[in-house]
């Protein structure tokens, strides 16, 4: 998994961040599926049925392989998403789970190398051709990575569709109102400083004294990602950060805890699973956040 310690170049870090940030737009692939279908039909119509060699040649082109493979894998992962949505525990929000899964899959996608250019696929209607022509089709030993790529990209596209309230076309029935409630609650930010102190106290047995405020601060900061009113929330978290220094939180502790525990920078779901304490802390935090946000 890519994390803060992976020694990436600044250019790559920017690219990965951009892929995460614009995922909703980049992986809404309905337009691409339509474009590919139309293109494929047009190309087939051009071919001469009397010359089978021409047809073989066309099939081996990277663009044709790209189109057929992508369309073939379109609904491959539907079952996985169904399971994830249908068998969600009562106290879990399915859309949050989907979001976390997508973050993980995008990280996997970034690790493949050629996939970083995916950002440019939306640029023009035929930008996908440049992407397809640079894929390592017909290279020895690249079959596995190519199959994995198509599965991943279609999986992410499906998740994006469901996440963006377009799950109906796949027969996935999610109660979006629950999720909207989370958004609304966090958007209106009912979390006062007193409630924050309560949350810290409730989770205190799993934290070291020094990291308490930093944990809560980061959890809130990362949760802004699913909030509609981003700028307002950021401002609020900024205030909170400032408040925390003045009240109850000794000077400099957040900075110290940030540098000593890199996982604080990640979303709750991506915290290291091996240490029992982290998992317990995460669960306790989730529970008390939900309680205080009235979710």
């Amino acid at each position, binding site marked *: 998994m890519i994390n803060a310690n*992976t020694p990436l170049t600044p250019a790559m870090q920017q690219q990965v961040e951009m892929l995460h940030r614009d995922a909703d737009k980049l992986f809404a692939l309905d337009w691409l599926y339509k474009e590919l279908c139309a293109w494929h039909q047009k190309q087939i119509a051009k071919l001469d049925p009397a010359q089978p060699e021409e047809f073989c040649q066309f099939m081996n082109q990277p663009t044709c392989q790209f189109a057929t493979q992508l369309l073939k894998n379109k609904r491959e992962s539907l079952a996985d998403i169904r399971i994830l949505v249908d068998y969600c525990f009562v106290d879990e929000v399915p859309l949050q789970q989907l979001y976390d899964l997508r973050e993980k899959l995008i990280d996997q996608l970034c690790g493949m*190398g050629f996939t970083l250019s995916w950002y440019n696929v939306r640029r023009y209607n035929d930008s996908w051709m440049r992407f397809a022509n640079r894929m390592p089709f017909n290279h020895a030993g690249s079959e596995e990575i190519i199959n994995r790529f198509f599965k991943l990209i279609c999986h992410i596209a499906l998740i994006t569709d469901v996440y963006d309230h377009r799950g109906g076309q796949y027969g996935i029935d999610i109660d979006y109102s629950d999720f909207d409630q989370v958004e609304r609650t966090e958007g209106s930010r009912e979390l006062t400083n007193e409630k924050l102190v309560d949350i810290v106290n409730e989770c205190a047995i799993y934290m070291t004294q020094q990291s308490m405020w930093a944990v809560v601060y980061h959890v809130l900061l990362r949760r802004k990602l699913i909030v509609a009113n981003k700028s307002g929330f950021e401002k609020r978290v900024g205030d909170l950060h400032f408040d925390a220094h003045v009240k109850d939180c000794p000077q400099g502790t957040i900075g110290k805890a940030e540098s000593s525990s890199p996982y604080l920078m990640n979303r709750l779901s991506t915290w290291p699973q091996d240490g029992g304490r982290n998992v317990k802390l995460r669960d306790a935090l989730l529970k008390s956040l939900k309680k205080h946000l009235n979710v």
Partner: protein
Amino acid sequence: MATEFKLCALLKQVFPDVDFENLPDIEDQAFKELTLKEADRILGLPDGEDIFMAFAEELSNSNESDFVKQFSSLNSKAFPWLTCEIVLLVGLIRHFMPRLELLDEGLKDDQDSVYPDLTVNNTALMEWLHKTPYRHVSAYMVRVMYYEMLHWSMEYNPPMQDYLAMQCSDVEPSDPELYISKVLDVLKVADDHFDRGLKLGLNEDLMALTDMLWEFIPHDYPDEYVQMACEMYKIIQQQLPRDNKFNDQDSYDLFEHAVMDKCFSLAAEREIELSNFSLNYIHFWLENKYFVEETDEDSPSNTLQS
């Protein structure tokens, strides 16, 4: 007396199974085997790295006379054994391996070379890594090789750095077999890519430029990209000052502007579509390579005063 006791207790804590009264002679094969066996055991512990580094630090902080007295009271052979152990383990943990003969006599380098060959082309080393029973030592040795290549690419070739970092980000030496096979495969791919470039007659800078224009490695060095990299490199060389470094921000900005301008026209000639990602790569690479920020300490007036 107190320090002596502390050291003794520490030794027993870090090496509980070693019989310090009956250590083998330094010439013996058993001496080397004991070193490797203990290194393997420590590296295999979940927090072995931390334990050992704390121990090494404690030793280095202790008084020299205490140190010698301690080992003379134990055994005259304990000191050389512990020195070997420290050199081997600290080297593996801190990502440098100065002497391959600590692993095996057969791996001894030429006397001429200052640094050992830590690439996948060193067949003797590769064979040792695959065959040795000390799997944790082997995994950490692979990590040393990985960092060697990573540090090289950090200096010369950003896309290779990203390739190495991305591909190896999901494996840890705590799972030795997986780590060894995965990382060596990745290193091999990167090395083959580099060799292909050398065969085409490209130097490090030209390879880096081609890779950055293409955005990732490995690839087949397509002609138009190689040509464009050559043209760009010529322009860079023309624009450089005599010592190949820019000291002030303004003249560097002008240089980068000129290079990037030319870059767009060259790409348009060859119908190469430049992405933001490529341009970002080139921007950071140029800055890293040709721009040195002048600090107050380096300025001549300061040196004169001091």
